[in-house]
């Protein structure tokens, strides 16, 4: 099905180009995530062991909330001039539209994560860089699961009275397994675990991303149709 991926790629490129041009989404997300980390520093004793053991949680809390903000924006762009209607008028499969938007969100999230990891190192004094290659695996899986569920629910919440306000209410409870897997993997790696030590968590993260990636791909059609 090559046309399917042509459409996916076209939407993905379009989103990247828009983002590159304005940089409004990513900068707002990063700034927000930065503030979250900062607030945590005020809430707890900076540099204390508690902070270091809380680092994985703080990282994912910052990523999740900034990510939810970005997801809302991603569909606001499509709603602006009724662009989503334009997309639906093209011969593209709803699945391709979903995948394109999801990839765009995922790249935005990955960039955000790359930007806040150094902040984490500076503020919380955690040794992230030594284990970075290993760390990428659970972060990737967590982000994939988040982007899949988040993209579907963002498209839904845009059409309710609460708009973006409903997005965290819908997304967070469903996301619990993925977040738990991401946080626990992160913690394990910081404590010196290898990938095989945290394999059960990676399996969970992978299962979540795989299952919901597929389910959301199929269900997106019903969210789009009249």
């Amino acid at each position, binding site marked *: 099905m090559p046309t399917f991926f042509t459409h996916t790629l076209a939407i993905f490129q379009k989103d990247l180009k828009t983002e590159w041009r304005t940089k409004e989404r990513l900068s707002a997300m990063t700034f927000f995530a930065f503030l979250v980390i900062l607030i945590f520093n005020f809430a707890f004793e900076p540099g204390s062991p508690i902070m270091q053991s809380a680092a994985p949680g703080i990282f994912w809390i910052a990523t999740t909330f900034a990510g939810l903000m970005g997801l809302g924006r991603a569909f606001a762009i499509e709603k602006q001039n009724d662009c989503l209607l334009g997309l639906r008028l093209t011969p593209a499969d709803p699945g391709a539209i979903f995948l394109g938007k999801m990839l765009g969100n995922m790249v935005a999230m990955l960039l955000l994560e790359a930007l806040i990891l150094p902040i984490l190192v500076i503020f919380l004094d955690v040794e992230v860089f030594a284990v970075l290659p290993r760390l990428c695996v659970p972060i990737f899986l967590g982000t994939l699961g988040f982007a899949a*569920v988040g993209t*579907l629910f963002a498209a*839904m919440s845009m*059409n*309710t*009275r*609460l708009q973006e306000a*409903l997005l965290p*209410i*819908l997304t*967070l*409870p*469903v996301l*619990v*397994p993925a977040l*738990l*897997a991401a946080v*626990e993997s992160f913690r394990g790696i910081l404590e010196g675990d290898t990938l095989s030590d945290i394999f*059960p*968590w990676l399996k*969970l993260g992978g*299962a*979540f991303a795989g*299952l*919901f990636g597929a*389910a*959301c791909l199929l*269900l997106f059609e*019903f*969210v789009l*149709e009249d």
Partner: protein
Amino acid sequence: MRRPYIPAFVFGILALIGLAIAPYMALMYAGMEKDMGFAQKIFYYHVPSAFMMYIGFALCAIFSALYLYKKDKKYDIWALCSAEVGLLFCTLVLLTGPIWAKPIWGTWWVWDAQLTLTLMLWLIFVAYMMLHSYSEDSLQSAKFRAVLGIIGFLDMPLIHYATKLWRTHHPEVVRGEEFGLPLDMKIAFYFCVLTFLMLFLAILFKRVSVEKAHDELESIKSEIRDRKAILGQLGSD
């Protein structure tokens, strides 16, 4: 004009009979567990509630999938009602769980796999109900709810696995195992499960009949709007 809804009535009678006998089964017939004492008796109501919660949410997922496939309003009604009744029993599980945990574990809330799963399901289906109330168009809301119902159901095994795995990092709490029990307790337990099933079905059928009446009301309202418009049309000629 007010037609009795037969299944709700039949299951209601059965549930009432069961409920009249259930306290006897739980308190008198079943023996006393020596460590937990009366606290163990909470299980005869707590665990069947949990079963009914699962049945409710599973039915919601099945009817949701049917709705998306067939787009027939009646499946949406059944999905919505199953979710609501499932949520009722979910709430019961969450209320009675801590009451059992306090004397046995010494704390109201423990992040044990089962409790955490129940809490997450409660949150997901409360979100489901919010989606129902905050939607602008009922047809779209039905589709969105169906999507969430299916996602929530798929999430169940993952949440369960996640919290199980998570707990191994923390002191393991031993749960009262209700199945390796003496025969008298087992019989009492299954009696209560059956009674709760009747109760569940009675409430569900009742809830569906109310929702159908509501649906009928809405269609009569829109018919009246139509007629008024036609009459107004004739008047203006």
